[in-house]
């Protein structure tokens, strides 16, 4: 184990409407096998012992599966490692003497709560607008009663990998949420269980995405590069396709009084 001496430039913002600024913090003797969040914990312990305000940041499982950790590290959501969340990023990826910029995910739809913690409930609103399958409660259907092609099951599983962290929005030059929305809608739109509500889901989620103030996708593909779960922009292509079909079908749904 070796120890790193780092200079952190951390975004400090006391509340949503307060002006923020970068604070220089010397992080000395950081073990290189600490995770990035453990490094933040060490820094916070020292701040607390000095009587200073610790840095607020989001975290939960620290196993790379909950989507709670965020942070933009040197301009990249979740830092420099591909398909890796901040909690799974280790300090051995940095060199002693490095200066590291740590900022919150920045988007109008992700307002800063404090320092590096942002409010991502806009994603919950999009999910509420259609990111579900309405099921009859009771016993599960018989195994193999609903055949699903292997390719479809695999693809839906790929989309289901999305942990809803918001790195796609943070990385997008337009702060667009298309990768998240397309993965969530695409997962269900691919499966037979999702078909009855496909039109309603697609139109509802896109409408909510727009209402939440996210930007428009202009095919930069920064989202795919930043995604810790390697969600493909193929899902965006599929959402565009599903939206076009749904918008055409919706007219019939309105005229016919139901039946997606």
């Amino acid at each position: 184990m070796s120890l790193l001496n780092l200079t952190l430039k951390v975004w400090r913002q006391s509340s949503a409407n307060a002006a923020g600024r970068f604070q220089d913090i010397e992080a000395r003797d950081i073990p290189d096998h600490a995770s990035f969040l453990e490094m933040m914990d060490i820094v916070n312990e020292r701040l607390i012992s000095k009587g200073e305000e610790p840095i607020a940041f989001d975290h939960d499982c620290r196993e790379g599966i909950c989507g709670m950790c965020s942070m933009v590290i040197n301009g990249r959501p979740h830092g420099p490692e591909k398909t890796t969340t901040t909690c799974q990023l280790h300090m051995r990826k940095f060199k002693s003497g490095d200066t590291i910029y740590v900022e919150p995910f920045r988007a109008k739809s992700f307002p800063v709560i404090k320092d590096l913690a942002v409010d991502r409930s806009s994603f919950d609103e999009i999910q509420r607008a259609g990111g579900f399958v309405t099921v009859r409660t009771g016993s599960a259907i018989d195994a193999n009663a609903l055949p699903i092609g292997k390719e479809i099951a695999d693809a839906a599983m790929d989309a289901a990998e999305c942990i809803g962290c918001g790195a796609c929005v943070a990385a997008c030059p337009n702060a667009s949420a298309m990768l998240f929305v397309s993965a969530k809608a695409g997962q269900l739109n691919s499966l037979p269980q999702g078909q009855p509500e496909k039109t309603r889901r697609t139109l509802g989620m896109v409408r909510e995405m727009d209402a939440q103030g996210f930007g428009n996708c202009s095919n930069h593909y920064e989202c795919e590069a930043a995604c810790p779960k390697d969600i493909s922009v193929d899902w965006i292509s599929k959402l565009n396709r599903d939206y076009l079909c749904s918008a055409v079908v919706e007219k019939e749904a309105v005229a016919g009084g139901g039946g997606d």
Partner: protein
Amino acid sequence: MTAVATSISRFYDSSIGKKILIALTGIVLVGFVIGHMIGNLLIFAGRDAINEYGHFLHTVGHGMGVWVARVVIFGSIILHVILTVQITKKNRASREQRYGVTHKDASSAASRTMILSGLTLLAFFIYHILHFTARAFNDYDTYKTMLHGEQVHDVYKMVIAGFSWAPASIFYIIAMVLLCTHLSHGVASMFQTLGLSNSKTRPLFQAIAGGFAAIILIGNCSIPIAIWLCGYGR
């Protein structure tokens, strides 16, 4: 509003609906760019070839053909510009506080400058229309020649005169470089926006867009370069 009008207005109001309209108007403009380049290259086939082509454009469909084309092209440009300005404004508003440090992993310079290349092309388009179509602030309207016993507009002489003036050639070449970057991102984006690309076909569409943009750049720039720098036709 009727159900159909509601559906159309919802489609237009949505982010994806706008982008689909941008892609569709983009297809019209790509068609125009191809036809325009091929037609203009007739300048290298001599005076009669391009004059005959110009005469054909103005007489096809009893003279209405050119107006149909103009309405479709102007309409597409107006819609394309309004929509892209609208989405760009929303994109800027979607991130009020900028990052202190940014790092680009996937986006290209072309993709990040679409609105700049696009609006510069709009300015060029207006100038180009005034220069060669409306023939404002010049005497090109007086250029006449005989073709098959008929007096027609001398397109050949007009183009040679137009590009003999260095500033016109320079602005044209700058605009074509921007058109090249605009097409290299825009043509590939069309397939994605219309939901026609996936990870297998995306590299192919990007290569097609790059190749197409390069062909348009070379083809169009060959004309002012030949006239202004090499003295073709002067």
